[in-house]
């Protein structure tokens, strides 16, 4: 009996400590997620109560050309940014994972750009990409490219410009990789040395498998992040030119808060949630083949 009372007491105590999160979860996550699912089946403009319209929103979306443009743009961006940033960050982290002079300075400098608030970064890159006076085209002309791209003003170059900009902020990922790299047991490298492994084979057979959980983590975070890209593109290009940078979340935002089509926007949000979920599951499933968890 006493034992049971103690357990009940502990449960109450535990729940008391956890209660802020439980309340927050219900009010700010569970209810909104449920509501948005309901709204996605409604015609809802916030001022009037939602009217149930079944699958109408989803059906309309399938025939909405801007929706598909936003899907394509987001996919294009993700396909460029994900591998580029994962590889660049890993490369930089590997360079930093050596005993060299000035390491801490390098590390700090690499990390600095990822601190910059999205809005400020957007302003900065607007200016850097300025077709005539921006540093990038000034530099390109200096190395002999007489007609550099107009970047943000050119529908073909606007997306690569945003990709370039996102690579500037890769320092955060570098730091995560670096922590992983420093956790690779030295014995593994020593064993590889004894076997006479070349540096490249060491990277392939020791480093990469050892940090595969970190790569996996960065991949998942990358998927979730790139599929939601909004702020910088919204500020820099507002989706243009010629809808070349209209991202999914941007079109969702416009529908919700500019066109006040809350139900329509909710349908988009649910499709986004399901896609992110599916991609994450896919990555998790594939990870069984390439992620090695150490014996820790």
């Amino acid at each position, binding site marked *: 009996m006493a034992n049971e009372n103690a357990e009940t007491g502990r449960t109450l105590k535990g729940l008391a400590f956890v209660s802020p999160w439980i309340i927050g979860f219900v009010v*700010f996550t569970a209810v*909104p997620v449920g509501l948005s699912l309901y709204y996605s089946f409604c015609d809802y403009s916030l001022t009037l109560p939602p009217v149930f319209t079944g699958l109408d929103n989803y059906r309309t979306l399938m025939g909405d050309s801007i929706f598909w443009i936003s899907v394509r743009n987001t996919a294009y961006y993700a396909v460029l940014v994900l591998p580029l940033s994962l590889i660049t960050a890993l490369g930089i982290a590997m360079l930093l994972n*050596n005993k060299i002079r000035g390491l801490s300075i390098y590390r700090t*400098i690499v990390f600095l750009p990822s*601190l910059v608030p999205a809005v400020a970064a957007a302003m900065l*890159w607007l200016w850097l990409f300025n077709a005539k006076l921006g540093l990038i085209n*000034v530099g390109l002309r200096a190395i002999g490219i007489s007609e550099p791209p107009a970047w943000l003003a050119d529908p073909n170059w606007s997306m690569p410009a945003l990709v370039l900009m996102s690579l500037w902020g890769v320092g955060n990922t570098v730091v995560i990789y670096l922590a992983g790299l*420093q956790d690779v047991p030295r014995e593994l490298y020593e064993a590889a040395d004894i076997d006479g492994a070349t540096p490249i084979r060491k990277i392939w057979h020791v480093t990469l498998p050892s940090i595969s959980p970190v790569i996996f983590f960065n991949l998942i975070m990358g998927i979730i992040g790139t599929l939601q890209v909004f702020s910088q593109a919204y500020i820099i290009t507002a989706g243009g030119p010629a809808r070349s940078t209209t991202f999914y979340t941007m079109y969702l*935002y416009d529908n919700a808060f500019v066109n006040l089509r809350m139900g329509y926007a909710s349908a988009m949000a649910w499709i986004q949630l399901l896609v992110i979920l599916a991609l994450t599951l896919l990555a998790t499933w594939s990870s069984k083949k390439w992620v090695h*968890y150490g014996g820790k």
Partner: protein
Amino acid sequence: MSNLNTGPITTIPATPVQNDVAMISFPKTGNDRQPVAPDGTVIPDRRTRRTPRSWLLHIPLVLVCVAAILPFLWMLSTSFKSLEMAMTFPPQYIPKPFQWSNYAEVLSSNKTDFLLWTRNTLIIAVLGVAGTVFSSALVAYGFAKIKFRGSKVLFAVMLMTMMVPFPVTMVSLFAVFKWLGETTGTEWLGTFKPLWVPAWFGSAFNIFLLRQFFMTIPDDLSEAAKIDGCSEFGIFWRIILPLARPALTVVALFAFMGIWNDFLGPLVYLQRPEQFTLALGLQNFQSQHGGTPWHLLMAASVMVILPVVVLFFLAQKTFIEGIATTGMKG
């Protein structure tokens, strides 16, 4: 009592300052049993040894750093130019003369109210950071130190919420805040409340991070306190929190940066210019000015970036001090 072997006591002091960020970020991937402080991440002899050709590594590293830092220098340079100078081709890299007045002009421009926006951002940041740190620590303590029925399920649910993209809740949260405004009798939409009140209900990532840290704190102190008649909250408040100061600093720092950088939240919930945060104000400043006076825009951007950068450098120090003063060295 039994988990003394994974205590942070020996591992944290070995962490050089530069690694504080690594210490922050890495545990997300960490194995459940691992302490937040990545033990061993920083033991120098784990790195590959210096090779005779190590100077070759400096070449790519310098290039990477130049690419990272040039945009900053370009921004700074423009921020001290006159408009004509900024629009001159080819550009002048070092402005002559330095036009310091750009900064004053941004601060006093009648189209902007930088001081007010800074104040707004700070109000939200103070309330938000305090809420995040306190509530996340409280919840994390519950998950880390009290073994209660259902805690595993709740914790798993919490981890899952990290996957929910903001756009999914963005629209309906708007409706929830509207409803809260109608039922509580005080307006929520168009006030700072939607931006800081949720912070007082814990944030999943920070709870996770703190829980990992709390689990590395040995139980003997708490048990001794319990024998002395200390309540559970007393243990949390007087024993665990002081010991967890480095981790709490990290959470506070992250929360602050999140609020300082947030654009979408203020964009959705704030309507009147006098309520704008810096991020929203800066964007508004740009769209208002149409023709884009780059020199002013860059000066304004510098002012938005500077506090974050200063904080970053200060925080490195806070870490050493935090570790020293919490007696972790003992």
